[in-house]
């Protein structure tokens, strides 16, 4: 209690975790599921089924296309109706497979069971890839890639991220309370794969029940549980590593540069189930919440469930909904349709009513320095924003815009209501494009010279 670990900067928005006491519910089988083939960063998976094929629950629908990719499995048994596209949370069309369920929900034969502590690391790694596991905290980076650090980057610490610093979301919290053994088994499997001894689990102090339970269970797995200060963005990789180990991830670097690998508890649970039960990733715990929702709660949704169905299962809405957000209120994506499927990284569906949405008009920066104090990366969002407004991306690059982790603390606290993080996202996109073009130009020049 007295020694809560933390990082520099950050904010403390209203927590709004109304769904934290409602247990994870099982939704009924829906008529059909629209399973997107691009649920991860990297190349979309390649469908291996055709229209009219009969599939079973957990059967492979699409295979990975390249190293940075992940397979997709069927959420239920039934028939493949169509290979089409659907709207993703980013607003773009992504390839998808529609599976019409037969109502029997018959599972395919599970993959052979493995022992998280004693199986061969390569077998376990293979399983993580086969089960289609991706980072379930939001970034959806294929976990197999994360667990395959290059040989020149030794890893000595595995960090489990049970922070869930986003307000409103409670999925990871419930998962830690209801399925701690899967998380710990998954953590052990990851540790075996990476060959590390030290495993740390960080939980924010606003979840004392989860801290107590995990501490009790983790003892026999030799996993340290740490309580962290309630401060957003405590769950950001670089901040979490700093709070737990005191190591600073270098600018532009990855956790592996400081010998760490960070896994979300949801991902760990999925790995645990894939290893001990042989079950691929086709369902996840998602929070449906927000003041307009009649019955906010946590659900174990199958991948491919439309937001429309998720909201309907939660009893619909009672107010006028003005914003639907995929994820939490600080970093989530606002979406413009209900026909978007729940994906492997959908940690929450948040609805905001008229009174909660902010439609401010930005004022000029009054240089109060709050963004600077709030920024967990110690940047100067205020000055950067003015530079970016004037299209001075060169200056912005000089003032370290590329270090931004897009947590939104600056915009959250800005009394002038400036779109600070939005400006920085744009600058990052522009700078990345510029660097790519420069690299391409350099590559084109080289052979001549």
């Amino acid at each position, binding site marked *: 209690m007295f020694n809560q670990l933390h990082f520099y900067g950050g904010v403390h928005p209203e927590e709004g975790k109304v769904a934290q006491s409602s247990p994870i519910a099982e939704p009924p089988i829906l008529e059909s599921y629209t399973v997107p083939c691009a649920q991860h960063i990297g190349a979309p998976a390649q469908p291996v089924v055709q229209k009219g094929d009969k599939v079973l629950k957990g059967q492979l629908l699409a295979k990975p296309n390249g190293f940075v990719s992940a397979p997709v499995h069927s959420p239920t048994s039934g028939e493949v109706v169509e290979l089409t596209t659907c709207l993703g*949370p*980013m*607003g*773009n*069309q992504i390839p998808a497979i529609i599976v019409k369920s037969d109502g029997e929900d018959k599972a395919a034969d599970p993959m052979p069971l493995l022992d998280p502590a004693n199986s061969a690391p390569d077998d376990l790694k293979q399983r993580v890839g086969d089960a289609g596991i991706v980072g379930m905290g939001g970034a959806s980076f294929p976990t197999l890639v994360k667990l395959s650090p290059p040989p020149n980057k030794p890893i000595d610490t595995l960090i489990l991220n049970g922070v869930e610093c986003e307000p409103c979301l409670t999925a990871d919290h419930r998962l830690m309370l209801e399925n701690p053994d899967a998380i710990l088994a998954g953590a052990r499997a990851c540790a075996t794969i990476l060959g590390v001894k030290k495993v740390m689990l960080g939980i924010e102090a606003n979840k004392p029940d989860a801290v107590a339970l995990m501490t009790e269970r983790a003892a026999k797995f030799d996993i340290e549980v740490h309580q962290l200060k309630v401060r957003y963005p405590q769950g950001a990789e670089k901040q979490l590593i700093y709070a737990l180990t005191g190591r600073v991830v270098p600018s532009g670097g990855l956790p592996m540069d400081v010998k760490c690998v960070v896994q979300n508890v949801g991902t760990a649970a999925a790995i645990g189930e894939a290893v001990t039960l042989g079950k691929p990733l086709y369902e996840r715990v998602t929070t449906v919440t927000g003041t307009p929702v009649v019955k906010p709660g946590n659900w174990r949704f199958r991948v491919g469930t439309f937001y429309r169905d998720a909201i309907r299962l939660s009893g619909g809405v009672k107010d006028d909904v003005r914003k639907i957000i995929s994820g939490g209120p600080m970093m989530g*994506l*606002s*979406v*413009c*349709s209900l026909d978007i499927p729940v994906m492997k990284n959908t940690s929450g569906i948040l609805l905001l009513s008229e009174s909660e949405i902010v*439609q401010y008009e930005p004022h000029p920066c009054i240089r109060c320095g709050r963004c600077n104090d709030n920024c967990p990366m110690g940047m100067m969002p205020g000055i950067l924003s003015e530079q970016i407004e004037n*299209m001075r991306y060169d200056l912005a690059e000089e003032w370290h815009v590329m270090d931004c982790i897009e947590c939104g603390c600056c915009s959250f606290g800005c009394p002038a209501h400036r*779109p600070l993080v*939005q*400006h920085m*996202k*744009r600058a990052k*996109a*522009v700078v990345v*494009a510029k660097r790519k*073009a420069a690299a391409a130009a350099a590559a084109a020049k080289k052979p001549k010279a």
Partner: protein
Amino acid sequence: MFHVLILTVIGVLLALAIGLVAKYFGAEQDPRADQLLELLPGANCGGCGFAGCADYVKAMLEGRAKPGCCPGMTPASLSKASFILGVEAEERERKVAVVCCRGDESVAVNRAFYNGVTDCVNAVMVANGGKACTFGCLGLGTCARVCPFGAIEITEKHLAVVHPELCRGCNKCVEVCPRHIIKLVPAKAPVHVLCSSPESFKIKKGVCSAACIGCRKCAKNAKEGQITFNGFLACINYANPPEAEVADVCPVHVIAASKAQQSK
């Protein structure tokens, strides 16, 4: 007389010092560099493929580039530059940018109200922008802001329009457009297809009443190979462009006569 002597002595001594320094520390400079720089537009737009006008001049002097690379040079200054460099003048086709979308607010459907930074790059990052057509111009003016020649206008109905008489074809707007709907085309081309969506008729019809419906009437009224199709989208073959009359047969008026030709 004595003061004249003193002044002369001081002057001679100083001249000697300057001469010595210039001899031992002086740097060579090509006198042609300044002349060439004067002939360039000086907008540092990067359209030549070099980092600004001065860099291009350097490249020309070192023989790494030809005088025709700058899209903004007038033919007269181009021939002067060729003369200075002592190379053959090269004919260069004038190119202009064209925004391949005519879906302004009156014809295109908005699927949601976008409340954020007035910039297309930002809008695309938020649920792909408010416009339902993912190939439609968002009209938030990113291209107009990067144009060094002020050639792009955002209409009242939020659509970017290039004024070909001002456009120098520097490619900046083409690079910055997050929807990739601005194209660099020969200024001579008589018609353009003002739509970029190759999606199916079903999807396009729901989102924009000014989209190319893929009826192929234009292709039938043009010669072989002048109009090709990419999915449901008619594409002008700029190497062999069709006549301006093709525009008249288009039922949705998505094929429009080029403004550069109209203004002539």
